């Protein structure tokens, strides 16, 4: 095991109550198992990337965290309170800019603040403070359609940050941007995160992006949507996207994802056995994820 092994290690359990606690969450769309027995803990101030191919349920999980999707099984809680719908402490950032096209940049920032009950002065103050942070000086009176894709994304980010949520939930926010703009957005987001240390859950299918941004990368696989590995990224920030160690880590995760894809879903026998065990334990609902890491779950080849 080379350098990469020490820089990318399975997550160790932390003490104290997690900010976000995802326990045995499952979700079905009719016959399709979108999520199967997902367990994730996110502590306050962590930047966690959910990484996986399309169909692995990462977006479903994010929407469940946002309270827009109610999972068909399991429990999601934030600060110990079960998530029952959208809440002011969690804010979703979309892949589309999702700006109000009839409002100027400034009005797009002000409107949600006013809707949340902030006074005009307070709202104006917050908007003024955020404009330079997301580099939109000189564009406050522009309309969204007059801006570039990257600028629109910065407005959306600014609009979210203005509300100062404890948790930012980001749904592949930079996937539609060109490579250079995306790289700028990574730097910007890292800088803002280092400043505010918000709890961030960031969904992406881009291994490289996950490693550039995250403290942790939760690797997921499809059919059924499940967690393969929960890894800590021990690289100092700001990270250089061309860093050799990072490139090497990305290669290994990609290999692992490919192997999981080829191996397909866990064997039916193991599947049934585990389901029976779960049904027996229905009232206790223990069975932490680590206990059942078996042959069916591909190993990332990192020291456990």
């Amino acid at each position, binding site marked *: 095991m080379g350098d990469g092994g020490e820089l990318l290690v399975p997550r160790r359990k932390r003490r104290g109550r997690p900010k976000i606690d995802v326990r045995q969450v499952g979700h079905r769309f009719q016959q399709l198992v979108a999520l199967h027995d997902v367990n994730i803990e996110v502590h306050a101030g962590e930047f966690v990337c959910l990484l996986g191919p399309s169909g692995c349920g990462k977006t479903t999980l994010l929407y469940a965290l946002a309270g827009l999707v109610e999972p068909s099984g399991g429990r999601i809680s934030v600060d110990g309170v079960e998530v029952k719908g959208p809440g002011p402490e969690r804010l979703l950032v*979309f892949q589309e800019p999702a700006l109000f096209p009839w409002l100027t940049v400034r009005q797009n920032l002000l409107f949600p603040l006013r809707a949340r009950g902030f006074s005009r002065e307070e709202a104006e103050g917050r908007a003024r403070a955020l404009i330079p942070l997301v580099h939109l000086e000189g564009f406050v009176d522009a309309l969204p359609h007059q801006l570039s894709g990257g600028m629109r994304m910065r407005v959306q980010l600014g609009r979210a940050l203005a509300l100062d949520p404890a948790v930012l939930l980001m749904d592949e926010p930079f996937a539609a941007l060109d490579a250079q703009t995306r790289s700028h957005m990574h730097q910007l987001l890292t800088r803002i995160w280092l400043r505010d240390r918000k709890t961030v859950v960031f969904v992406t299918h881009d291994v490289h992006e996950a490693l550039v941004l995250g403290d942790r990368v939760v690797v997921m696989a499809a059919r059924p949507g499940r967690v393969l590995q929960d890894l800590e990224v021990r690289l100092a920030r700001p990270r250089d996207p061309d860093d050799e160690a990072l490139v090497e880590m990305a290669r290994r995760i990609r290999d692992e994802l490919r192997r999981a894809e080829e191996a397909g879903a866990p064997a039916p026998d193991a599947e049934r056995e585990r389901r029976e065990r779960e049904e027996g334990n229905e009232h206790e609902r223990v069975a932490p994820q680590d206990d059942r890491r078996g042959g069916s779950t591909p190993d990332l080849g990192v020291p456990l």
Partner: protein
Amino acid sequence: MAGPLLTWAFLSRLGPWPHWLFPDPLAVGRSFATVLSDGRLPAAVARSLGRMVQGYGLSLAIGVPLGIAMARSAVVNASLRPLVLGLQALPSICWLPLAILWFGLSEGAILFVVVMGSLLAIAIAAEDAVAGVDPVLLRAAGTLGIRGLRFHLGVLLPAALPGVLTGAKLGWSFAWRALMAGELLFVAGGLGQLLQAGRETLDASLVMAVMVAIVVVGVAVDQGLFRMLELRVRRRWGLVEAPA
């Protein structure tokens, strides 16, 4: 414009029909100038537009919320949509007998016909527009915590406004037709009444002059007011490239 006018002038002079029944453009122009200067035309236009403000205003005030409700509530949709679509097939003038039974030969009867003539088209267009709002905007409003009246007036309505405006424009032309039909039928002032006055005095040139006035007012509002509003909204919303 010159071609049709010349043809009209020729037909009026050379046709087998009596000249007074088919006056030439000049006679119509003279009639137009007369009713304009003696104040009958301005008064009639003012009267008709006053009714439009009330009747059409009422249609907008009911139709837009009705359309939003049909788009947003499955219950309202299931119970009202078939009715709205069915009644939409009814020509507005067919409401007049019922209006006279209910309201008598009154202002109320005319307004009722105007409202029924335009309300449904406005509601259906508003429903379409709201149902077509980008779901990402609705999700964004949800996560940003924009709810209630602020959501309906601050997100849903502006997001649907381009489509609502198209429906409002259509509703205006429906309302204008319904009003003229209503005004024709009993003595109530307005342009329809002036048209009727022309018939009663066997003054075909007055009838034609008033017809011209009806077209002019209709086109002016449609092309002037609505066209301008639509263009401004579409520019602001980024639906057309604004000229650099």
